[in-house]
C-alpha cells in the first residue's frame, strides 16, 4: 500500500543485482566439426608441412587442446607463393562476373554453416558465442557478398582510370577477429583478380582452415587462395617474400614497423592496419544512458581485443560523476564466463600471454595512482579471464592512457572545453577511431574534422559495414579496408 512521502531521512538508494532470478547455463551445442589435425592449404589441397612440425591450438576458455596446426616453414611459404603465381594468370583473366560467382558462393556457403563457424570461432578464440554468432560470422559473409557485387563493376570503381590486379598478395591477420579479418582481406583481393597467400594468427588458425573447406566446396580454382599457418617466423616469410606484389598486415604497430623496415626499398606495396588507443568523448548534452551503453560496447566488445576499441573515455566534467556512476551499475550486470554460453557478455582472454600483458598494464595503472573499479564477479577457475575494469582519475601521462592494453580495461579522463577534448583525443601516436557523444549536430561535424582518426563514430561506437572504409592515421597505419577505397588498395590504376 502506498504511503505519503513525508519522512525526511532518506533511505540510501542502491540497486540489487543479485541471484533472485539466476539464468541456467545455456551452452550453444552446434557441432563445430573440427578435425584433430589441420594441414596447410596450398594449391587447393591440404598438404603436410615440409617442416614436419605441428603446434597445438588451445581453447582459452579451459586451456584444453583443440587441434594440431601445421607449422609452415620458408619452403612451405615458397610453395604457397608458387601455387598462387601459377593461379594468377587464369584467375585474373576471368571476367569479373565469373569471379563474383565464386565470391557469392563462398558467402552463401558460409551462411549455411554459420552456427558451426560461430562455435569454432568461439572455441578457438574465446569470444562470446553471442558475438561470433551475431557479429563475426554474419559480417564475414557480408564482406564476401559486398565484394562479389563489385567484381563485375570494376570498370566503374575508379572513374577515368582502368583497374587491374596487382598479382600475388601476402596477408597476415590478427587473432581478435580471425574469420572477419580474413574476409576483409580475401574478398577485395579476389574481387579485383589477385591471388592470395594468407597467414592466420598462431592462436586462431582454425576458422581459416575451415574456410578452406568452403573454398574447395565452392570450386575456387586451386592456388587462388593459400593458407600457411605458423607463428612470427612464418609471418615474416609471408611478408618478406619476393613473390609478393603487395602485403597487407593487420596487427600490432610494433610488428607493422618491423615489416615496413623489412620491405623498405622494395617496390612491394603495403597496407597496414595497426594499433589504436581511441578516445570516446562524452559531452554534457549527450544522451547519457545510450552513451554509457556505447562506452560499454566500445571497450568490452570482444573483451576489448579490438584495435579500434574506445579504450580512453574522455568525459565532460559536469557529467563525469553521473557517467561513472551509471557505468559502474552497468558493469555489475555484465556476465563474464564460458564463451559458449549464450548469455555470456565477456568471454575468455585470447591467450595466457595476452592475459599477462593486461595484468601488467593494470598493475602499472594502480601503481601510478589511478583508481581501479571492478564489479564483483566470479571467474571460472580454469582458462584465461579478466574482469571488466574501469580506471578513474587517469591523466594523459598514465601508461594506461598511452599504451594499447587490448583488454577489457577502460581509462577515464575528464575535460572542460571542446578544444581540450580535441587536444587530449589527438594526444596519442595512434589514430584509428574515435567516438563523439553529443546532441549537437554542428559539434559532431567539427569533431569529425578535427579528430585525427580514420573512423569517427557519432552517438554510437564499433559500428561496421562492408561499404564503409576502415583504416588509420599516424601509427595506426595506412590504407583502407572496405568500400571503394579498400578495393582500390588491391588495384593498379592506369
Amino acid at each position: 500500500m502506498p504511503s505519503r512521502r513525508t519522512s525526511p531521512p532518506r533511505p540510501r538508494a542502491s540497486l540489487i543485482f543479485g541471484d533472485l532470478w539466476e539464468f541456467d547455463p545455456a551452452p550453444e551445442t552446434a557441432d563445430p566439426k573440427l578435425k584433430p589435425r589441420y594441414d596447410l592449404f596450398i594449391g587447393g589441397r591440404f598438404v603436410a608441412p615440409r617442416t614436419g612440425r605441428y603446434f597445438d591450438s588451445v581453447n582459452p576458455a579451459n586451456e584444453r587442446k583443440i587441434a594440431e596446426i601445421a607449422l609452415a616453414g620458408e619452403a612451405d611459404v615458397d610453395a604457397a607463393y608458387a601455387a598462387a603465381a601459377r593461379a594468377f594468370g587464369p584467375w585474373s583473366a576471368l571476367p569479373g562476373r565469373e569471379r563474383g560467382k565464386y565470391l557469392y558462393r563462398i558467402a552463401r556457403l558460409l551462411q549455411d554453416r554459420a552456427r558451426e563457424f560461430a562455435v569454432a570461432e568461439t572455441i578457438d578464440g574465446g569470444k562470446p558465442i553471442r558475438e561470433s554468432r551475431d557479429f563475426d560470422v554474419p559480417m564475414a559473409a557480408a564482406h564476401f557478398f559486398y565484394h562479389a557485387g563489385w567484381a563485375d563493376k570494376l570498370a566503374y570503381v575508379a572513374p577515368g582510370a582502368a583497374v587491374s590486379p596487382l598479382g600475388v598478395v601476402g596477408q597476415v591477420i590478427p587473432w581478435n577477429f580471425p574469420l572477419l579479418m580474413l574476409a576483409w582481406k580475401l574478398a577485395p583481393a579476389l574481387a579485383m583478380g589477385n591471388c592470395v597467400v594468407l597467414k592466420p594468427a598462431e592462436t586462431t588458425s582454425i576458422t581459416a582452415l575451415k574456410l578452406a573447406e568452403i573454398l574447395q566446396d565452392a570450386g575456387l580454382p586451386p592456388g587462388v587462395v593459400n593458407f600457411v599457418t605458423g607463428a612470427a617466423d612464418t609471418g615474416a616469410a609471408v611478408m618478406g617474400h619476393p613473390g609478393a606484389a603487395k602485403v597487407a598486415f593487420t596487427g600490432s604497430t610494433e610488428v607493422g614497423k618491423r615489416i615496413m623496415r623489412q620491405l623498405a626499398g622494395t617496390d612491394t606495396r603495403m597496407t597496414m592496419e595497426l594499433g589504436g588507443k581511441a578516445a570516446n568523448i562524452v559531452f554534457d548534452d549527450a544522451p547519457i544512458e545510450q552513451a554509457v551503453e556505447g562506452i560499454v560496447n566500445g571497450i568490452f566488445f570482444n573483451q576489448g581485443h579490438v584495435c579500434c576499441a574506445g579504450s580512453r573515455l574522455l568525459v565532460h566534467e559536469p557529467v563525469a560523476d553521473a557517467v561513472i556512476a551509471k557505468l559502474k551499475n552497468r558493469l555489475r550486470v555484465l556476465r563474464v564466463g564460458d564463451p559458449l554460453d549464450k548469455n555470456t557478455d565477456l568471454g575468455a582472454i585470447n591467450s595466457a600471454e595476452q592475459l599477462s600483458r593486461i595484468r601488467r598494464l593494470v598493475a602499472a595503472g594502480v601503481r601510478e595512482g589511478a583508481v581501479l573499479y571492478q564489479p564483483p564477479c566470479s571467474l571460472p577457475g580454469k582458462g584465461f579471464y579478466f574482469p571488466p575494469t574501469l580506471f578513474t582519475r587517469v591523466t594523459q601521462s598514465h601508461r594506461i592512457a598511452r599504451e594499447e592494453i587490448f583488454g577489457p580495461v577502460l581509462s577515464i579522463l575528464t575535460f572542460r572545453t571542446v578544444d581540450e577534448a580535441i587536444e587530449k583525443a589527438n594526444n596519442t601516436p595512434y589514430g584509428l577511431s574515435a567516438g563523439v557523444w553529443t546532441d549537437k549536430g554542428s559539434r559532431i561535424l567539427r569533431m569529425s574534422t578535427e579528430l585525427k582518426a580514420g573512423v569517427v563514430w557519432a552517438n554510437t561506437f564499433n559500428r561496421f559495414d562492408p561499404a564503409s572504409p576502415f583504416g588509420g592515421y599516424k601509427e595506426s597505419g595506412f590504407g583502407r579496408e572496405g568500400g571503394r577505397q579498400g578495393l582500390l588498395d588491391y588495384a593498379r590504376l592506369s
Partner: protein
Amino acid sequence: MLPRDTLAAHARLLDEVGRVDQVGVEERVAKFTTRSVKKTAKLWGLRTAVSMTDLTTLEGKDTPGKIESLCRKALRPHDDPSVPPVAAVCVYPSMVRHAKSLVGGSTVKVASVATAFPSGQTHFKTRLAEVRGAVADGADEIDMVINRGAFLSGDFARVEDEIAGVVEACGAAALKVILEVSELETYDNIRKASFIAMGALRPGDFIKTSTGKTNLNATLANNQVMIEAIRDFYLDTGIAIGMKPAGGIKTAKQSLHFLIAVKETLGDAWLTRKRYRFGASSLLNDLLRQLEKERTGAYQAPYHFSDATESY
C-alpha cells in the same frame, strides 16, 4: 515545482532529465531478446509473469458475466496448484463493485481505469469524481491517463497538478499513471512525462505505458526508457516507483524479455508484482501453455486452457 512559463519549463525539464537517443535505446533492448532463459530460470520467469499480470477487460460490451469469468480466471489461472493467482483484475469503474464481490478477501486486487479513460478529455472535476467513485466502490488500484493535450502544448505544470489531484482522490488506493506513449511519440517525451508523473507519486505507485486503445502500445524500448527513468528517480530520491507495460504483450517469450530488462536495469527489487505488472489478457494463457510445456514436454492445444479473456 515546475515553472508556469512553458518555454522555461520545457528547457529546464529537458536539461534536468536528459535526452534519449532512439538508435541507442533500440540497440540496447535488442540485446535483451538474445538472452537465453532455460529450465528452472524459465519456470521462475513464467510463474512470476503470471503473478504480475493485471488481467484486463476494458470494453463497451463488458457485462457482469464477463467480469465473473475474468475474476475466476484471475483467482485460479490453471488447475496446476503451483501456478499463482494473477496480481489484479483491471476493469471499468462500473464493474468495480461486482469484481470486488468476487475477488475481495483474496490476494487479487481490483484495479479500475478512471479519469475518462482512454482519452481523458473531460473536465478535471468529472475525472476526480470518477476516481472517488471507483475507490468508494472498492477499487484497490486506479489506472489514470495523463492530460496529453496539456503535455504536448508544454503545460507540464498542469499535467503534474492533475496527477497530484488524482493522488489525493485515490486515498489508500495505489495509482498507476498511464502516459499513453504512442501519443507522446518521442523517447525524449516519454522520459520527460515519466519524471513529471513520478514527481507527484507516492512510493508503491506506478507509471504505465499505454491504454491499449491506440495502435502502438508497450514495446521493449518504451519500457526501457521508463524503467531507466524509474531507476534514475529512485537513485536520486530513494522513492521506488513501479512500472506497468500494457497492451501488445501477447506471448510468454515477450514477457520474459521485459522481465530480463527489469532484472538488468532495476535489479532484483523490482522483480515482484509490488513493483512490476503486465497489463494484458491473452498473455496469461500463453504463459500457462508454456508452463504446461515445461511440465509435460508437449504443447497443448489452446482449448485445453480456460479462456475467459481475449480482448485488450
